[in-house]
């Protein structure tokens, strides 16, 4: 019994670690979207702020990137699902001996690196463009067109995999039955096969859109005048990131959770209705008085969905009335005070050090000649000059420096925050000054 509970405990422990690994980064990132520092950080927590969201919605490039991503995504969904469905149908119709070969060929784009697909798309369509004698601003060299085509080369394969899985459960006798009842091939496809494939088509479409939305390495070659969101983000990150990007990530996470919950709630609802129908008697079905299950009953997904919706509304509501100005001002004030205090401490420490040094100087001066006052130059003897000497930061500090003996002249000359670092004399060390 004891070992059993130990096993249970370790399973829970493992799960906790696993989910922390999986979701931790997302949580941290979401927190940074609401923290006020200019650089995205979760701690120390300073002020709750929504300004990164407004900063996000005022960033023309990000908004434009989102719009382009949606355009590309829509195009890719249409093209990939159509090609994927055609490929999947072909796979079930093709001569069995060719099937394995055909499958390999059609799956290959998934295995080819996206970079290669991007370059080859660019080169291929450029060639075609030239062969047709079209200019650089023709449709075939349009960034939108190229990105959609380039992404679809491999996203269509993903779609095909999803669709094939469903198609394998399709009974070809259903098409035959439709034909037998007088339908044409088109009618059989539209009225029997397509409705059957609908759930898989929806899955494939979602998959295609997400794959398109997050794609970077193919798009980076083809985007032209239409930089997508990923491209814009990558370009932004080069110049440092702001929590506005965290805000965007947070919005995407929330939307994803929303969609997942809605989907789950819908599936559960259907299951419950089906179960209720199965239990219902003929009379109940006929009279239409069958009691359908309550929307929330035994449907945690629906409950979660509503809770999430309420939270969202509450957050947006808070954001519109909440102003973190006071908090930010306080934090700023606090920071200023802290800085001042630190400067103060620094000064004090330096003063103490100076006093100690003065005492040492006096001692060494007693038992050595003036020419050998080398150690008195202190840090200045190194190649960095006085750059790391705390006294150098002050710049004006050298005036009250007691170190004004034989080496005082170069020290005075530098007089800048760099100390003697750029003083050519300093490089050779203070030793020769003494000679």
């Amino acid at each position, binding site marked *: 019994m004891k070992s059993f509970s130990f096993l249970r405990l370790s399973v829970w422990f493992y799960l906790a670690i696993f989910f922390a690994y999986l979701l931790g980064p997302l949580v941290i990132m979401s927190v940074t979207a609401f923290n006020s520092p200019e650089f995205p950080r979760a701690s120390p927590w300073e002020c709750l702020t929504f300004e990164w969201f407004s900063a996000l919605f005022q960033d023309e490039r990000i908004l434009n990137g989102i719009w382009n991503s949606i355009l590309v995504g829509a195009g890719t969904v249409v093209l990939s699902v159509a090609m994927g469905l055609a490929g999947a149908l072909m796979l079930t119709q093709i001569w069995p001996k060719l099937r394995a070969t055909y499958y390999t060929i059609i799956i290959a784009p998934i295995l080819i690196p996206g970079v290669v697909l991007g370059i080859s798309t660019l080169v291929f369509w450029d060639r075609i463009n030239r062969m047709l004698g079209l200019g650089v601003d023709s449709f075939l060299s349009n960034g939108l067109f190229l990105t959609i085509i380039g992404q679809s080369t491999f996203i269509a394969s993903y779609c095909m995999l999803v669709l094939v899985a469903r198609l394998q459960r399709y009974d070809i006798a259903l098409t035959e039955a439709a034909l037998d009842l007088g339908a044409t091939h088109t009618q059989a496809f539209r*009225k029997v096969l397509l409705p059957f494939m609908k759930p898989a088509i929806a899955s494939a479409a979602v998959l295609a859109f997400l794959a398109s939305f997050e794609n970077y390495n193919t798009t980076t070659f083809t985007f032209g005048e239409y930089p997508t969101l990923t491209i814009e983000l990558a370009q932004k990150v080069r110049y440092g990131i702001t929590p506005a990007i965290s805000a965007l990530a947070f919005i995407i996470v929330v939307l994803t959770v929303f969609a997942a919950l809605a989907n789950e709630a819908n599936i559960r609802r259907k299951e419950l209705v089906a179960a209720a129908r199965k239990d219902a008697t003929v009379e109940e079905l006929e009279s239409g008085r069958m009691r359908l299950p309550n929307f929330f009953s035994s449907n945690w997904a629906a409950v979660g969905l509503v809770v999430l919706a309420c939270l969202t509304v509450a957050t947006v509501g808070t954001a519109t009335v909440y102003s973190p100005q006071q908090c930010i001002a306080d934090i700023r004030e606090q920071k200023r005070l802290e800085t001042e205090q630190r400067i103060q401490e620094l000064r004090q420490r330096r003063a103490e050090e100076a006093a100690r040094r003065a005492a040492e100087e006096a001692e060494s001066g007693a038992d050595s000649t003036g020419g050998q006052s080398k150690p008195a130059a202190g840090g200045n003897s190194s190649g960095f000059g006085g750059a790391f000497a705390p006294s150098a930061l002050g710049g004006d500090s050298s005036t009250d420096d007691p170190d004004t003996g034989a080496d005082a002249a170069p020290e005075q000359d530098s007089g800048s925050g760099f100390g003697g670092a750029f003083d050519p004399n300093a490089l050779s060390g203070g030793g020769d000054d003494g000679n």
Partner: protein
Amino acid sequence: MSAGVGVDLENLWIRFGDFVAVRDANVKINGGDFFSFLGPSGCGKTTILRAVSGFLEPSEGNVLIGGNNMRGIGPNKRPTALIFQNLALFPLMKVWENITFSMEIKGASAKERRKRADELLDMIALPGQGDKLPSELSGGQRQRVAIARALCAEPDVLLLDEPLSALDLKLRQHMRTELREIQQRVGITFIYITHDQGEALTMSDNIAVMKAGVIDQIADGKTIYNDPATAFAASFVGENNVFRGKVKRIMGDEALISTNRSGDLVARISSANQGKMAEGDDAMMFIRPEAFALAPNGATGDHFITARVNHEEFEGNVFNIFMEGEGGKELKVSIPNLGQSFEDHTGQNITLEYETQNAVAVPAGELAAE
């Protein structure tokens, strides 16, 4: 009502590569008949059905429906409707939508379709079930929906591909009667495919017995049972005891056969083979279990058989006696239970007799697998 539309198969050959699925089939099916193709699985009966419905082009020969050659005409243009083995009801459509699919194709309004569906649901005794999904029906109900869907297309010929094979025994027996009733009511030609001889015998006007792509015999059920044309037909339809041997003498429509085990026995030559059997030919003789009667022990003659009893069983309506037979196969005898006393014969030798007209002689041939 008209006599219905007949179907003719003329010199029909169907090949898949080197494999011959149907070999020179010639069948004439009268309009309004309930016609069955009976044979073990893999004998080509479903292939014939697919050729009639148009999913398969014959390699040679023709399919004629109502006298019109169907070559080059697709399944959606033929006046046939097929009921699939697995029924192939459209899983996402409600029952009424399934039934009236053929009307939807022709562009009928939902109201018309609903009305027709209700009529047909009444006919198949499923009133008010139109709004269910096929998955919510029982096996027998689905069966009836499939029939209604096919009938809704108003076909001249209804083709049924072992539609009862997925049902349990009780339901199967019930559906037999129901199918026969429906056929008589609508008066169209039914072509029925089955490997179950009980189904074929109870429902059909005429039966074609098939073996490995070849049609052995076409006749009504009674003829096939009592007067089989081949050894295969005799052994496949109903239970039968086989005696192998050689023809010793031909006496008009009777033959004396010297059997390998039971001596010389007399049998009636089946009508299809009269005049075709000669003395010295290999022959087979068939006697049904119920055609035997117990005879006084030790009686001899050309219609007496003596053998040792292996075991016996009581089946309610009959006593079954299993005796040592030829080639390891047991000889089965069924004595009707009429309330008589019945002693156990296990281990003893007993003598049986039969009437000559109940023994059928045919040329030696392949038997149906057990």
